């Protein structure tokens, strides 16, 4: 909503009211913040040394969180790249002229969207070995992320391909291109560019979901933080628990907010391009953004 249509531009009196309201609001928020800080301090949670542990290289905390973050990023990156490629193929398959192909791909998509990702990862790691297929924790986690996200992305790609102006397709056929040429040379390149912001947004979901990996012992960010908490509990009780989880939470938020910003930036860029003067920017459906919980504790322990 660029120009407000639901309300008039506030006049001087309304602006004054808003200013007063804002002032009260800010005071209220500052008040709550003060109470929080005072109580945290009262419980010793603000002691400098408790926070210093996050940066104290001698404890290995920064290194461990760093390594765990790299693991998280790695599995998310691999998962994203493969899921995107597979998703593209599936989307093309779903738009195929051949009924069996359409049906097969449709079943795949519905199936993997319906069952919890956790169950997929679990099955890849524990059930496949019964059939002599052994996957490492990394492979099982990446595999689960790929299967689920390719199904989600296929649907988004399909919408993207369908959103390309009909004229493009007709013109391409008109100059004598074959079906696969129309798809690969005309429709997909345009659709992909339009999808770029959505793909980046999906990466946020993947990053959150990669924390499901701890059920199969993959050392990702949340597992890393928990491991540190448990390790310190041997000598220091729960002195550092709050700080470590705050750190892990902040790392997720910072990275994901940066990614979201990137997605917004790319969206504005692509929208400016005349070649993609599409109808509407694509958006990631809200339920997809929710992810699969990320770090579900539903593991059979």
């Amino acid at each position: 909503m660029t120009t407000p249509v639901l309300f008039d531009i506030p006049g001087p009196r309304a602006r004054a009211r808003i200013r007063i309201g804002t002032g009260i609001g800010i005071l209220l928020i500052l008040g709550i913040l003060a109470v929080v800080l005072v109580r945290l301090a009262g419980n010793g949670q603000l002691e400098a040394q408790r926070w210093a542990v996050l940066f104290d290289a001698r404890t290995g905390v920064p290194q461990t969180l760093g390594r765990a973050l790299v693991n998280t990023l790695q599995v998310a990156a691999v998962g994203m790249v493969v899921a995107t490629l597979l998703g593209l193929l599936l989307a093309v398959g779903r738009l195929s002229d051949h009924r069996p192909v359409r049906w097969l791909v449709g079943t795949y998509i519905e199936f993997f969207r319906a069952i919890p990702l956790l169950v997929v990862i679990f099955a890849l790691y524990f059930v496949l070995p019964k059939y002599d297929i052994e996957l490492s924790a990394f492979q099982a986690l990446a595999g689960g992320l790929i299967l689920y996200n390719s199904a989600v992305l296929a649907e988004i790609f399909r919408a993207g391909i369908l959103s390309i102006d009909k004229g493009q397709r007709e013109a391409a056929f008109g100059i004598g291109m074959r079906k696969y040429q129309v798809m690969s040379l005309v429709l997909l390149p345009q659709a992909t560019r339009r999808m770029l912001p959505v793909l980046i947004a999906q990466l946020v979901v993947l990053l959150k979901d990669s924390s499901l990996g701890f059920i199969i012992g993959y050392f990702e960010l949340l597992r890393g933080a928990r491991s540190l908490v448990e390790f310190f509990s041997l000598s220091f009780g729960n002195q550092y628990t709050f700080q470590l989880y705050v750190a892990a939470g902040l790392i997720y938020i910072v990275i994901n907010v940066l990614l979201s910003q990137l997605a917004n930036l790319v969206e504005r860029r692509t929208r400016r391009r005349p070649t993609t003067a599409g109808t509407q920017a694509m958006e990631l459906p809200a339920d997809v953004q929710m992810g699969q919980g990320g770090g579900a504790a539903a593991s059979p322990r």
Partner: protein
Amino acid sequence: MRTTRYAASLAALGLMLAACGGSEAGNQAEDAADSNVEVQEEVDFEAGTTMAELAEAGSMTVGTKFDQPGFGLLNPNTETPEGFDVEIAKLIAAELGIAPEDIEWTETVSANREPFLQNGQVDMVVATYTINDARKELIDFAGPYYEAGQDIMVAAGNPEGIEGPEDLAGKNVCSVEGSTPAQNIRDNYPEATLTLFDVYSKCADALANGQVDAVTTDNVILTGLVAGSDGAFELVGNPFTEEPYGIGVPKGDDEFRAFINDTLEEAYESGAWADAWDRTAGAISGQEAPEPPAVDRY
């Protein structure tokens, strides 16, 4: 841009914190006592046995817990587990001519120990693994190598006056979902209110916050939590079950099982077993090594 600036100032603050005194954890950081198992140089096993295969391969995969202080706890800095279970596994590996660094550690949680063994994803499981008949249907056990018992941990001073499981009636007691101790409370002390998390560290947090009145599980695990609590928790010290810990091997591999039992008995004799205890669980709890249990060659 703004985010970058925030991040930079945050990092600067961190460096400042680290510079002025650092953290208590950092000041106390010291290397864990190195294990001093002697790896057999010359090993000779009958061809076709599991031992021959493992010795030939020069490496093995061991399943253990990564979240049990004193028994199997992941050291996040080295990304390898440490504890009594880990030392026992190293002793067995050494007899096969496998050095500690050639052991691949796999995290096992309560529910995947049997599938891991059945699928052959691990060669053996040393993971605070209580021997019982239901499990013997699926796998076999060497050992026991330790006798634990379920106990109760409470806040310092025992404000609720909990002396045994009978006193848990009407109290909020914490354990881990899917653990044998939790099932025991459910079956035998139904008056207690169970609060179940997925890991014990959360139970410790809940007890510290006063969200629960007590934590119950095997005494050895509680000892680790008490040791770290800096006097905030105490152990009731009245074990009310017997939990013989065994080493899980694939069903029917009797030669391997016998070999592990022999190795355990040797370790009892040579003092390696007691030494392993002193460096791990014993170092945490300050308790002397107990009398090792007799292995059960069923």
